[in-house]
């Protein structure tokens, strides 16, 4: 049977419940929530005067009510050492989600640590050190002293290149301004570490170098633009499942035509219609089906291209809009450079593109018209371009990214209402670090260093390469071998003899061993190899600032205590930095020790004030108190000023005619609205982006050798690598194993039935999944859930990367064979098509 909670009554939040601001800590959309908390022995009543919702709860509440919460939005947690009821419920006042909760974010409360209800019992509560053949709890001082001592000794022997770092660099649960600043200060200021990488890729680099190098930052529009566009062109993204409430609250109204009033109001001098959408994706996703439902099939153009051929399509579209005279000449002249050269270099006929992409010439022409054919009366068509991992982790990342930005610039669609050329994003953003220029470009391919025996100590901040890297099979084998050498050495010396321990560890490192230090909130798969594990707090257990996909910055307030001895990452950095200072000083290296001064932070707010406030554009206008007052709407970065309460003047550069309400940080709705871009001359640069087939080494040969495309990505139920979901019964029941969508005819040929356990394999490695018959899947093209703990798709992804070490997860080919009949854990599941169809 389906998992049921058998909860049929929940406590009523009382009138005086504490209410705090929460931004969902999962995806980049950053939906606004409110946390209600109150003492565990109390509750409100049904009468409106007795509850926090001011509603008569003795009655059935209507659809979309704000006066209800689901069991997943509830828990009992510790707050300042006392048990409290906690409800985390979507905020109807937040402009991002307007009260919508996704299947992921609306489980934040249930996925909080509770010793009372037992949720997230997996959370790390103590520093752990490898002792007596296992991980043993110890004190902070003991654990960080060992880390500092080994780190110093490795740096003494190998230089700072011997310290390899894997680190979050995002927002929400993937960092936050406080924590990225702290880690950045440690590794880029106190040290100059260059062998560093980010959580989902093997180097320290941008996923969108291409766009940035053209002077176009990748988060340049606002969510409202999706309501205003004539056409949305979305590439390699599945926003219904991965930016759910952005799609539901801002794209759907345009497709339904319910944003027409807003279009007429904000852009009065041109004709308007309900939005159309072009979706570039080899797979028919639930997003395609939803768009057809809302806009009608005639207003949805699904370009199901051959995997990895986007670049040829975009070049052909640029060629076509240029030939038709549909480019924005005044914009090109005023705000860009290099157009003519790029247009000539990238010239691609529609027929050529049709041959490469597998699309029909007519569909490519239709797409060009939907993007750029002037509207009645000659008004420029407003098209918003959005892309994500299908492009970012697809073939030839850099050029493909640039070819799409070319198209957006040529049609005048950056910096204007209804436009934008934006990545949709994964995590929220929250990057504030000292310069990383010393890392270089291309940055070091860190995974290859680790596999190749380089480095002696590895600091890991909230990364789990075992689930979220490419070439994962080889990586895991090498990593386990190297860290086992150190474990064996540690086992040979009494744990309490620190000097002997460190000598033994260093001896093992000289033999090719690796000392692994893992900072995380939960036990990870790479953490099984760690010698020291340090427990971290997450959003809500600490105050945390981040920004979303329209640069909307909010403060998530601390609404509960972190588990056990766990600490915010920024305060773990304090402990590490101070321990390193002591270690260097004890070693007689006072000059090096002095570099680790400046970490006298008591709270996460101190780290914020040291980092974001002092170093980010407009940071001087931003404080915790101001953010708290601005609730779940916050402001859009960069800040340009602060309007004092009462509307008396204010500081900073308030835009002319600013209508800011009293007591608000003044932000920036769209970037580049003045037509000036991020290059020294203010002009965005067009790029030459010729098609060159499969760019990453070995991809074409892999395609030729293996039968199935193993496309991959996320599922609606699951956030990221399921680090919390793996302990959530609702999700664990639904997906005990990752699924792989297969065409039923392919399954029949392989004698597979639904739920069967299959092995996916190629020359890179092997992994497992349960087969999900999917009629809309094309023959020979599968889609596997990415980064799932019980079947890691990265095992079969080759090590091939682009010139800037961006992985190419999407173009993976393999064979499939049956391992076993559907296991017991999946027999109660449904394998009906996911796609919604109208009645």
């Amino acid at each position, binding site marked *: 049977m*389906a998992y049921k909670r058998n909860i049929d009554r929940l406590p009523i939040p009382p009138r005086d419940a504490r209410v705090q601001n929460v931004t969902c800590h999962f995806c980049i959309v950053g939906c606004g929530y409110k946390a209600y908390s109150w003492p565990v022995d109390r509750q409100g009543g049904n009468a409106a005067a007795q509850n926090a919702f001011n509603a008569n709860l003795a009655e059935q509440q209507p*659809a979309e009510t704000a006066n209800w919460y689901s069991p997943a939005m509830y828990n009992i947690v510790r707050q300042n050492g006392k048990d409290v009821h906690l409800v985390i419920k979507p905020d109807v006042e937040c402009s991002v989600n307007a009260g919508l909760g996704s*299947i992921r974010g609306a489980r934040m409360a249930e996925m909080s640590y509770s010793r009372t209800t*037992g949720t997230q*019992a*997996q959370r790390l509560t103590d520093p752990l050190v490898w002792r007596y053949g296992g991980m043993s709890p110890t004190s902070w001082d003991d654990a960080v002293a060992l880390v500092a001592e080994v780190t110093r000794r490795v740096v003494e022997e190998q230089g700072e290149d011997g310290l390899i770092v894997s680190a979050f660099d995002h927002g929400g649960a993937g960092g936050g301004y406080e924590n990225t600043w702290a880690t950045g200060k440690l590794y880029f200021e106190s040290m100059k570490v260059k062998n560093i990488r980010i959580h989902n890729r093997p180097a320290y680099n941008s996923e969108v170098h291409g766009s940035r190098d053209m002077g176009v930052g990748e988060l340049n529009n606002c969510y409202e633009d999706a309501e205003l566009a004539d056409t949305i062109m979305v590439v390699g993204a599945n926003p219904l499942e991965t930016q759910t409430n952005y799609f539901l609250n801002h794209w759907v109204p345009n497709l339904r035509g319910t944003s027409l009033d807003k279009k007429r109001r904000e852009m009065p001098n041109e004709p308007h219609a309900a939005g159309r959408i072009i979706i570039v994706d080899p797979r028919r996703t639930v997003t395609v089906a939803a768009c057809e439902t809302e806009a009608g099939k005639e207003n949805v153009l699904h370009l199901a291209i051959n995997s990895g051929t986007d670049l040829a399509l975009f070049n052909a579209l640029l060629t076509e809009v240029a030939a038709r005279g549909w480019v924005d000449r005044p914009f090109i002249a005023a705000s860009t450079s290099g157009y003519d050269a790029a247009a000539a270099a990238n010239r691609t006929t529609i027929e050529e593109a049709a041959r490469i992409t597998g699309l029909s010439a007519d569909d490519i022409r239709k797409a060009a018209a939907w993007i750029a054919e002037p509207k009645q009366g000659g008004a420029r068509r407003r098209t918003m371009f959005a892309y994500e991992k299908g492009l970012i982790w697809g073939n030839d990342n850099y050029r493909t990214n640039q070819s799409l930005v070319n198209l957006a610039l040529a049609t005048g669609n950056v910096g204007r209402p209804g436009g934008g050329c934006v990545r949709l994003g994964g995590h929220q953003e929250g990057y504030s670090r000292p310069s990383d220029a010393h890392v270089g470009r291309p940055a070091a391919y860190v995974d290859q260093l680790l596999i190749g025996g380089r480095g002696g100590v590895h600091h890991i901040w909230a990364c789990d390469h075992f689930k979220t890297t490419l070439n994962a099979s080889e990586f895991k084998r090498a990593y386990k071998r190297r860290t086992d050498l150190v474990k064996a050495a540690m086992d040979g010396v009494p744990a309490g003899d620190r000097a002997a321990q460190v000598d033994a560890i260093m001896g093992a490192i000289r033999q090719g061993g690796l000392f692994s230090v893992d900072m995380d909130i939960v*036990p990870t798969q790479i953490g099984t190899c760690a010698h020291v594990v340090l427990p971290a707090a997450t959003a809500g257990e600490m105050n945390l600032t981040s920004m979303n996909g329209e640069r909307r910055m909010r403060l998530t307030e601390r609404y509960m205590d972190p588990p056990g001895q766990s600490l915010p990452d920024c305060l773990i950095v304090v402990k590490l930095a101070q321990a390193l200072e002591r270690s260097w000083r004890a070693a007689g290296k006072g000059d090096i020790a002095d570099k680790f001064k400046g970490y006298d932070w008591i709270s996460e707010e101190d780290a914020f004030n040291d980092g974001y406030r002092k170093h980010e554009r407009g940071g001087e206008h931003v404080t915790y108190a101001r953010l708290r007052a601005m609730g779940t709407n916050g402001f859009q970065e960069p800040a340009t000023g602060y309007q004092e309460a009462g509307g008396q003047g204010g500081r900073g550069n308030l835009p002319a005619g600013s209508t800011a309400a009293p007591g608000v940080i003044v932000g920036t709705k769209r970037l580049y609205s003045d037509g000036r871009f991020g290059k020294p001359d203010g002009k965005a640069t067009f790029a030459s982006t010729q098609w060159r087939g499969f760019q990453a080494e070995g991809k074409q040969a892999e395609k030729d050798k293996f039968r199935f495309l193993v496309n991959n990505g996320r599922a609606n139920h699951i956030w990221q690598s399921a680090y919390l979901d793996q302990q959530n019964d609702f999700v664990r029941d639904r997906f005990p194993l990752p699924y792989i969508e297969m065409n039923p005819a392919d399954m029949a040929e392989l004698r597979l039935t639904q739920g069967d356990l299959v092995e996916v394999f190629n020359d890179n490695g092997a992994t497992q999944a349960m087969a999900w018959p999917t009629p809309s899947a094309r023959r020979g093209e599968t889609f596997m859930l990415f980064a799932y703990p019980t079947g890691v798709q990265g095992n079969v992804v080759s090590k091939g990367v682009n010139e800037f070490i961006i992985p190419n997860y999407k173009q993976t080919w393999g064979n499939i064979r049956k391992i076993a009949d559907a296991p017991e854990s999946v027999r109660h599941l*449904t394998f009906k098509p996911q796609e919604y169809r109208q009645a």
Partner: protein
Amino acid sequence: MSHCDRLADGGRRFFLMRGAVAAAGAAAVAGVASAPAEAAPSLARVTYPVTRLANLRDLKVNEPVQVAYPDADSPGVIVKLGTRVEGGAGPDGDVVAFSTLCPHKGFPLFYRTDDRSLNCPGHYSRFDCEKGGLQIWGQATANLAQFRLRVDRNGDIQAEGVDELIYGRLSNVLS
């Protein structure tokens, strides 16, 4: 203590605490995990009315009938699936009943006869009537509330409980 042990312990605790609800109780859990559980909150169930929804002879295979339970403000559907399913009632084990308020945002679900699913026009969620209301795909943070059924000797189908919180009420039985 290896991570594997931690995961296993966590899982056991979780099922005992939440899956089996009040019956398991804190006492059964203490000592299982390294971090001892503290007193569990009372999760006592509400008392449900017993309500006649239909008679077996009213039902035709794959033709849903609108019902309401536990009261008139909580719409639902009863359907004879034609094939025996886990949790099905009646002599053929194929009669099931569900709330038709989507547990995501409370929009009314509609029944598709071609794949025996309940579907939400609000945000496209789909629930499988043959699998206990399992969410095939969707936004709800729960599978669909199912009405527990008992069939009397005369064929009357009685509803006598609900296994999830119904949308729009903090107590399945309003008071």
